């Protein structure tokens, strides 16, 4: 069976700086992969490269065996790769519901003419989309905020919104960039539980960047460790925790939470 | 039939007209480089300069006095604009700044129209209209004077930026205002000076061009040529602005002869669109132009 995500010798360059160096990894369908590493390791850049936000200098990306590297970002998204953002990137002036509706819009289409003239078809599809969006909001305890404008909400709530929005699009593969940053322990646990439940129900493969080791170790089937743009280790969470190279990489890095 | 003499004659005309466009482009690029604001009202600064020259000439003041006054009043106008209209919105989204500078231009044009009406005026160039013959070519003294002034202004600006404290401060601010501020440079003062210099140059362009094209409220239209010149040169390059201006002048003069009059006016704008699509950074500009 083809892997859901195959990254082959991927490199990303910014001018003279090599941010991602010859990275290869394979994530099986239904797997939850953790991606950890000290700050500046290139984790977010790797996600940016997979989603087409930054240009690839070498190597390629395959989704279910089909190449997606080189496609424009929105096309990659339409193939089934979704992501959440380290800094949320909210549609600040829109309500939480509208934010999530944009996600739903990836598979729910109302043609322009129908939308303009408020035809029965437009009503049907908009109602259906709203129902879907509200269901996702409920999973993430966001119903109370559905009409609140995103700009007025605290960071942790927006992180949940970002998660809900990305999952509402029903991706085949979801790349999550520090989904629990800014959240309290209980918030983080609930958000991750909701995301995993949805992922299992919809058969979504997850690749998660996390600095919260407690969450990471409990969540991930396999963990990939990056440093200085390259992969330095890969294995089961408990193996990684005892891995000499990994521990050395984190020594002196203040972002690490409790190990083990 | 394009003979060498005709071509050279056209080139001379193109360079002299191009010098004005170069000055306008310079006036656009200087505040853009330092403060990131593109003054869409620069065309009307040129118009203002022409009308100031008109008033002062009608007062029978000698030419050097007129030149100095145009420069000073132009600079003063820039300071007023920067302080009163630009400063309150300098942090606003780009849309606001673009529209505001446009509006300032139209405001100036409106005031000029009210005061002077639409009827055209003219002033004489400082060296008369008797063409100078050299090497079998005909040189218009006003055109020569424009070229000389443009060259002097360009050299002056480059020396200023390279050697004076304020000039170096301006260059520092254009690269990184935050770092400049940390180094003790008063960024607001730099902005004010860059506006003053640019409006002084713009006003001077109005004075210089007036004997060639007359004085009327519509002069400001030549901002379009100045903008095209800035695009060709790349918005952040001073030598680029000059090269761009001369290029536009030459293109305009030659296309007037080579293409029918119907389409010759379209050439600059088609060129503008092509450049914006394929090479917005022009010849010398940085590939990614970000407003800091």
């Amino acid at each position, binding site marked *: 069976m083809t892997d859901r995500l195959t990254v082959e010798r991927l490199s990303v360059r910014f001018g003279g700086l090599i941010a991602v160096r010859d990275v290869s990894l394979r994530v099986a369908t239904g797997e939850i992969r953790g991606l950890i590493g000290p700050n500046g390791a290139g984790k977010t850049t790797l996600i940016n490269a997979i*989603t*087409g*936000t930054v240009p690839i200098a070498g190597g390629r990306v395959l989704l279910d065996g089909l190449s997606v590297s080189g496609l*424009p*970002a*929105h096309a990659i*998204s339409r193939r089934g790769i*979704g992501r959440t*953002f380290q800094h949320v*990137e*909210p*549609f*600040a*002036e*829109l309500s939480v519901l*509208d934010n999530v*509706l*944009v996600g739903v*819009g*990836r598979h*729910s289409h109302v043609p*322009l003419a129908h*939308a*303009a*003239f*408020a035809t029965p078809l*437009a009503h049907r599809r*908009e109602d259906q*989309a709203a129902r879907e969006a509200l269901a996702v909001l409920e999973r993430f305890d966001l119903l109370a905020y559905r009409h609140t404008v995103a700009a007025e909400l605290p960071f942790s709530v927006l992180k949940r919104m970002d998660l809900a*929005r*990305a999952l509402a*699009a029903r991706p085949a593969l979801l790349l999550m960039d520090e989904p629990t940053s800014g959240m309290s322990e209980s918030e983080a646990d609930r958000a991750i539980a909701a995301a995993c439940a949805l992922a299992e129900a919809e058969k979504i493969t997850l690749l998660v960047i996390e600095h919260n080791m407690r969450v990471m170790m409990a969540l991930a089937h396999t963990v990939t460790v990056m440093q200085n743009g390259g992969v330095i280790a890969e294995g089961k969470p408990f193996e990684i925790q005892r891995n000499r190279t990994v521990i050395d990489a984190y020594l002196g890095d203040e972002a690490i939470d409790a190990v083990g | 039939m394009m003979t060498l003499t005709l071509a050279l004659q056209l080139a001379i005309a193109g360079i002299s007209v191009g010098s004005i466009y170069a000055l306008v482009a310079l006036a656009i690029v200087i505040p853009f480089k330092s403060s990131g604001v*593109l003054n869409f009202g620069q065309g009307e600064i040129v118009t203002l300069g022409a009308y100031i020259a008109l008033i002062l000439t009608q007062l029978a003041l000698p030419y050097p006095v007129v030149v100095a006054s145009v420069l000073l009043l132009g600079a003063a106008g820039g300071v007023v604009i920067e302080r009163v*209209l630009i400063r309150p*919105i300098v942090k*606003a989204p*780009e849309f*606001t700044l*673009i*529209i505001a500078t*446009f*509006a*300032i231009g*139209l*405001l100036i044009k*409106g005031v000029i129209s*009210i005061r002077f009406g639409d009827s055209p005026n003219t002033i004489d160039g400082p060296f008369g209209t008797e063409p100078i013959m050299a090497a079998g070519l005909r040189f218009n003294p006003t055109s020569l004077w424009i070229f000389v002034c443009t060259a002097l202004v360009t050299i002056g600006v480059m020396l200023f930026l390279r050697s004076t404290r304020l000039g170096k401060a301006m260059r520092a601010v254009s690269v990184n205002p935050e770092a400049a501020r940390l180094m003790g440079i008063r960024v607001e003062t730099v902005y004010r000076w860059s506006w003053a210099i640019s409006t002084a140059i713009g006003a001077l362009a109005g004075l210089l061009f007036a004997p060639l094209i007359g004085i009327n409220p519509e002069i400001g239209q030549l901002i*379009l040529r100045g*903008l095209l010149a800035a*695009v060709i040169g790349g918005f952040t390059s001073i030598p680029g602005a000059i090269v761009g201006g001369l290029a536009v002048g030459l293109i305009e003069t030659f296309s007037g002869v080579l293409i029918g009059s*119907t389409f010759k*006016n*379209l050439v600059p*704008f*088609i060129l*503008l*669109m092509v450049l*914006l*699509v394929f090479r*917005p950074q022009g010849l010398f500009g940085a590939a990614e132009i970000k407003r800091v």
Partner: protein
Amino acid sequence: MQSRHRTIVVLLAVLLLAAAASTMGSYPVYLLSLAMINVIAAIGLNLLTGNSGQISLCHSSFIAIGAYGSTLLTARYGVPFWAAIPLGALLAALMGALLGAPASRLRGIYLALATLGFLQIVQIVIEEFANLTGGVRGLTVPKAAAGGVRMSEYARFLIVLGCCMLAIWTARNLLASRVGRELNAVRLSPYAAQALGVSVHRVKLAAFALSAAYAGVAGGLQAIVVGFIDPVEFGVSAALRQITFIVVGGMGSVGGSVIGAAVLSAMPEALRPVKEYSDVIYTLMLLGFLIFLPHGLVTVWHVIARRMRRHAPTAAAEARP
């Protein structure tokens, strides 16, 4: 429930307006028509600039394309106005897409310059192809007729009123639907939009075409209401006036377009004794709003509405014994 009440109120207001207008002289009715034409154009520009976030200095060019297009169809090919105007709008939309294709990849000053360039190109084409457009001297529009009978000022007003209501209705529908969400999304966060499968380029291009369509309708209507097309109406001052409507009214909402266009359309009449000053007054107003009330009059409206809602529950509580 609320929105059904609102629809009835709006329909009643429209009927009242139509009834009131039938009693007015033809000049006030003419002015009302022009105001509503401005509303239609403003709605188009607001979708492009306020919602999809693209500055455009050439909106008046699409009004021109609609005006000349529909007039030429009627004058040369005998197409009746009710077909000519939509066709003119279609032509404008196509030109909008043509400009939008490259322009939607540009931002900031480069986009402003591209639209400015387009404006100039259209101006030059209007002037140079004088055998088609009448050049600088303008084009007389054949008198609009319905069923062979020449239309009265009031009949034209009703047509404009109908189109204006249609414009408001369609624009509100669009903004409440996925189209509106996508327009705003590409402005608010292009990265998030891309990540959710929205093609920023395609949405922005569509925004150009859409706004040009509204402008084209406004142009076609303007031609039959005024009876004459004057190219001076489509220059830089006119483009800035269009922008003033949406800045003063409020960017990003249909209400803002309506308020801005309605308020500022009343001005030329008020300013008639000081006509030469109109450019100056417009620009001062624009600058004033940009500096002091950048979100437009519609924010004032919202504040009032919110205050009224706060008082309403108390009244209801008092009504209960």
